[in-house]
């Protein structure tokens, strides 16, 4: 991927706010979006989540009747994609031929659960078909493409927590193959009972706000939201006078073929992904200035991830800041790869190191790591990596570089 692909726009909806300025402010302040779960009643090991606040709005071009029926993750996706397209200055003609790649895991599950519950308890006589059709994880791509007029190549993928990192990789591939000059890559997911109760049943939820890489970490905190990026052929961005916020220099995937929920103990797939992304970028490990970790906060994940970083970065690891955005936004599952890519772009663009918030006592077995405790700090970065590990052993690493002035 010589020269990389320009990232010319970003959009974000998360627990810390409905747009990129809110996210940037939260990164600088080290604000945590994890708070009591209010979306649905649930009594279990945890009662916390990084829930998107009310009032995230969707663009006014949708018929009101359609807008009302959209599932929460479809609304998040539309808001984030709209912001990214605005940020990149994409007009209707540029959007028309753009590719769209989206990652998600549960679609409108929350709304479907509610309809199903009402039906089972006799509160409602029949399902609303629109609710059920909105369950599909494909709906978000339709909502975004039909509302914003994006009619290029389209794909929706789901590899659990690496879904939207894979979507970014596929969007970049569409540009590399010449199928599109511009691509919108995004991830979206909403909180729902299924994932909340499921992760809780696996004892994977921390009763407190998650503390990635902390000695006392007890699991993850679930979150929700959407992240979106506009990817663009570098020459195309230059020709229209747009300064890239960052460059996607390389990406790669790696599969564990080990277990449906647990990562491979040595992180074989994650290692393949990280090394592959560096190779695709044509960069040595020494080039990495910052790692936006998967950092879910489970005992197993963080240990495997540090082992992978040690294998890739060796003794240099102590000098490479590593932080987990999930400490602020929770684990947003299908949205995580894209939201964390947006955070990495902001880090490169603004020269900020996003913090790992909530650290009390870093795990001594990760002793050498610079985990960027709150409130983060400013540091000019040239190259950064963002890794995402998905259930079933589907791992993706993206290597990003600072954008150049055209």
């Amino acid at each position, binding site marked *: 991927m010589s020269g990389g692909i320009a990232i010319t726009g970003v959009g974000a909806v998360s627990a810390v706010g409905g747009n990129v300025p809110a996210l940037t402010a939260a990164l600088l302040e080290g604000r945590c979006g994890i708070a009591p779960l209010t979306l649905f009643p*649930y*009594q*279990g090991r945890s009662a916390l989540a990084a829930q998107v606040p009310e009032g995230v709005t969707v663009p006014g071009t949708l018929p009101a009747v*359609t807008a009302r029926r959209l599932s929460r993750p479809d609304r998040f996706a539309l808001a984030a994609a709209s912001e990214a397209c605005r940020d990149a200055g994409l007009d209707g003609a540029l959007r028309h031929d753009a*590719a*769209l790649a989206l990652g998600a*895991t549960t679609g409108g599950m929350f709304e479907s659960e509610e309809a199903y*519950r009402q039906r*089972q308890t006799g509160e409602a006589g*029949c*399902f609303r*078909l629109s609710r*059920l*059709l*909105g*369950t*599909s*994880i*494909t*709906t978000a*791509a*339709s909502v975004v493409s*039909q*509302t914003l007029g*994006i*009619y*290029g*190549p*389209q*794909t*929706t*993928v*789901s*590899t*659990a927590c690496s879904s939207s990192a*894979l979507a970014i990789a596929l969007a970049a591939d*569409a540009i590399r*193959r010449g*199928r599109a000059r511009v691509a919108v890559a995004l991830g979206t997911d909403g909180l729902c*009972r*299924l994932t909340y*109760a*499921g*992760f*809780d*049943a*696996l004892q994977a939820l921390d009763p407190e706000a998650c503390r990635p890489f902390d000695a006392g970490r007890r699991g993850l905190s679930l979150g929700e939201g959407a992240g979106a990026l506009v990817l663009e052929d570098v020459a195309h961005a230059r020709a229209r006078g747009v300064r890239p916020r960052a460059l996607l220099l390389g990406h790669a*995937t*790696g*599969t564990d*073929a080990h277990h*449906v*929920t647990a990562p491979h103990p040595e992180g*074989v*797939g994650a290692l*393949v992904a990280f090394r592959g992304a560096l190779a695709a970028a044509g960069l040595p490990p020494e080039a990495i200035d910052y790692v936006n970790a998967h950092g879910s906060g489970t005992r197993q994940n963080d240990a495997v991830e540090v082992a992978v970083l040690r294998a890739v970065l060796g003794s240099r690891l102590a000098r490479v800041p590593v932080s987990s955005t999930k400490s602020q936004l929770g684990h947003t599952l299908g949205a995580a790869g894209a939201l964390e890519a947006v955070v990495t772009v902001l880090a490169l663009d603004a020269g900020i190191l996003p913090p790992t918030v909530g650290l009390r006592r870093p795990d001594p077995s990760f002793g050498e790591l610079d985990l960027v405790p709150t409130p983060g700090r400013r540091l000019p970065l040239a190259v950064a990596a963002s890794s995402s590990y998905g*259930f*079933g*052993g*589907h791992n993706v690493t993206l290597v990003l570089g600072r954008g150049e002035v055209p």
Partner: protein
Amino acid sequence: MTEPVAVTGVGVVSALGHGAEAFWAGLLGGVSGLRPIRRFALPSGAPILGGEVPPIAVADVARSAIGRRIDWVSLLALAACRLALQDAGLDPARLAPARTALGLGSAWGNLRETTVFLDRLFARGAGNPLLFPNLVFNAPLSYASIELGITGPTAMVAAQEASGEAAIAWGADVIEDDAADVCLAGGAEELGPVVHQVLRETGVTTSGVPRPLDPAADGACLGEGAAVLVLEPLARARARGAKVYARLSASSGRAVPAPVHGWPRDPAPVAETLRPLVRDADLVMAAASGNPALDALEAAALTAAFGERRVLVTSVRGTIGDFGAVGALAAAAAVLAVDSGLVPPTLGLVPPARAGLDVVVGRARRAPVRVAVVDGLARGGFCCPLRLEAA
């Protein structure tokens, strides 16, 4: 110049039985796979037809520890993977893990255990930790990659009714990019009671038999199944002396204007997408299911795309029902049609077909099929055509 993609293996589990032979024999023989649904109780007394896959012995398909927990849709996918590898003459134990890829499509994933999980959650306030891993949307991908030891590129793809085509298109890209030597690509879908009930109550499904491309059609029948194709670089397939069924070309699907939950209203953009692909096609494997909105759109789009040419059209959905990954089975049928020069009939259609299309009915038709196109239409405005060409 990218390496041409060869289809060297076909694996299918459908209402017509297990294996591509049962599938193809049933399609050619005009045998309906649709029978009164037995897997779950239906509220009304009248029998409702559906395309259920006959039971699969887990131990035949899942030989590792995953067999203890694997769910039905994952089992369908894995069964199709194993059948496809066997058909291609490839021993799973001898695949190079990092040079083997896997792409699976599904619109809904695990439907049945999702409702079981939610029932317990609503009744007892707690989720079942043993079920949850199966409800992760990419569980079929995880199970199959673990069982077959695949560590190369993997993707679970969703695209409503074109989920199978979209996964196969992803697989073609992987081979063209030389990112793998062998790619298993296809899709799987299961029939679940809640979706079935809702679609029936809302009039999407028919209470009789589905009549694809028949102007009198009043709905589809739901089915389930899986199909997986083995894709390889043509040169490699030839070098190992593999049977090459067909060459595949695809380019990831495109969006076309449509209501977000519905079928495109304007056939013109669909026709425009299909025109270059059907230019020299002998056969189109249609998406038509007996759903009037889909069938009308497709008939208009195909007519416009064909222009003056007469092109044979058929649909498998009158035989095995409609479901998210059915396009993978349509692609398998297209591969077999190219290979055999036989076109299976569309069950349920009483001619004349919509828009005067030349739809094969009654008996299978012998015809030279050098190029077959699966048009890959999906709700929400997505079109993911696959083109299969004689090798």
